């Protein structure tokens, strides 16, 4: 039985966490918090399959790995469950409780296009607590003088593809808003972005204009299921008019996607009697 109490294991776990986060990947840390034995024992279960640490019981480790996948698919940051709730076959552990914690890179918003909407979205996302990268192919649009606030990374890129791939990495915790000035730029961004599969992809434009871009992507072989996930036109229906309002509707959609919200009014039930 080895908890994080063991200094070597602590070091192995912290290094494994740092490595996963550095790669832009997710993991689950499962810790026994209440049990007749083994309190503090923990396993780090990486989304890509790696495991660090053990509860000392291989069957329990396997059950934790199995449930970790379901936990990652939920939107919870942390949840404590009785083993009996997710692995009823493990009789001796039935009443033990395990804390599952999501290990995930800091949520980031990558904004492609630094026009009025892109600039407003970058500033708003920063205020709400996201790390923000704003990228444009026009250097003057991403000049530091335009964005004196700290915490907005600015990228001037004559070619969108390579910096986008690098910025998105493994894509966990990353939301990408494609709000460039034209079809061709949107399409170039979408090609790089879709290949990297971030958690959220949205593209600005009317239904007609976004259909044109999506049709071109379909013709060049992008998977239909992947394309159907794209939020295009981007944003929630707030009736937004100004660039700042549009940015709010986009950020609202990004938050709803990340937290598992519906985007519907919380008061709706009052009118449904």
């Amino acid at each position, binding site marked *: 039985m080895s908890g994080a*109490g063991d*200094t070597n294991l602590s070091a192995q776990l*912290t290094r494994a966490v*740092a490595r996963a986060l550095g790669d832009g990947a997710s993991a689950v840390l499962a810790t026994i918090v209440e049990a007749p034995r083994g309190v503090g024992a923990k396993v780090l279960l990486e989304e890509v399959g790696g495991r660090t640490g053990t509860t000392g019981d291989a069957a329990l480790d396997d059950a934790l790995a199995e449930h970790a996948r379901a936990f990652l698919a939920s939107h919870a940051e*942390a949840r*404590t469950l009785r083993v009996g709730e997710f692995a009823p076959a493990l009789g001796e552990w039935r009443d033990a409780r395990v804390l599952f914690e999501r290990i995930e890179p800091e949520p980031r918003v990558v904004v492609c296009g630094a026009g009025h909407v892109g600039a407003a979205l970058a500033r708003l996302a920063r205020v709400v607590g996201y790390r923000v990268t704003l990228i444009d192919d026009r250097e003057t649009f991403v000049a530091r003088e335009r964005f004196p606030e700290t915490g907005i990374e600015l990228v001037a890129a004559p070619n969108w593809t390579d910096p986008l791939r690098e910025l998105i990495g493994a894509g966990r915790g990353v939301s990408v808003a494609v709000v460039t000035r034209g079809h061709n730029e949107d399409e170039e961004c979408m090609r790089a972005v879709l290949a990297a599969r971030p958690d959220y992809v949205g593209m600005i434009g009317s239904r007609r204009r976004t259909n044109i871009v999506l049709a071109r992507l379909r013709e060049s072989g992008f998977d239909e299921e992947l394309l159907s996930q794209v939020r295009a036109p981007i944003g929630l229906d707030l009736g937004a008019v100004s660039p700042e309002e549009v940015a709010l509707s986009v950020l609202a959609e990004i938050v709803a996607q990340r937290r598992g919200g519906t985007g519907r009014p919380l008061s709706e039930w009052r009118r449904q009697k």
Partner: protein
Amino acid sequence: MATIPQLELYHLIEEAGERGERVVVATVAHTRGSTPQRRGAKMLFFEGGAVAGTVGGGCVEAEVWAEARVALRTGRPALHRFSLTADEASEEGMVCGGTMEIFLDVWNAQKT
């Protein structure tokens, strides 16, 4: 005290380990009712006396500090229940009333 980004949090634990310093990691494991912090919120207590992060303000923090000092000494992790009854909360002028379970884990427990 603000929340700490995960990468920084685990980096702080690792650095403490390199100094041979124990860290108690308090994590909000479960909540019922209206509580001042979300599940998963963390606060670190270093053997040297430093702290980082928060598990939720005056309602429970004093009790968590006391338990963390015990855990730093004994090296034994344990789950603690804190109830924030509406009465206590309103006396303190705070907006909590519920129960919180906070797990106090001990990292780098064994001295190298």
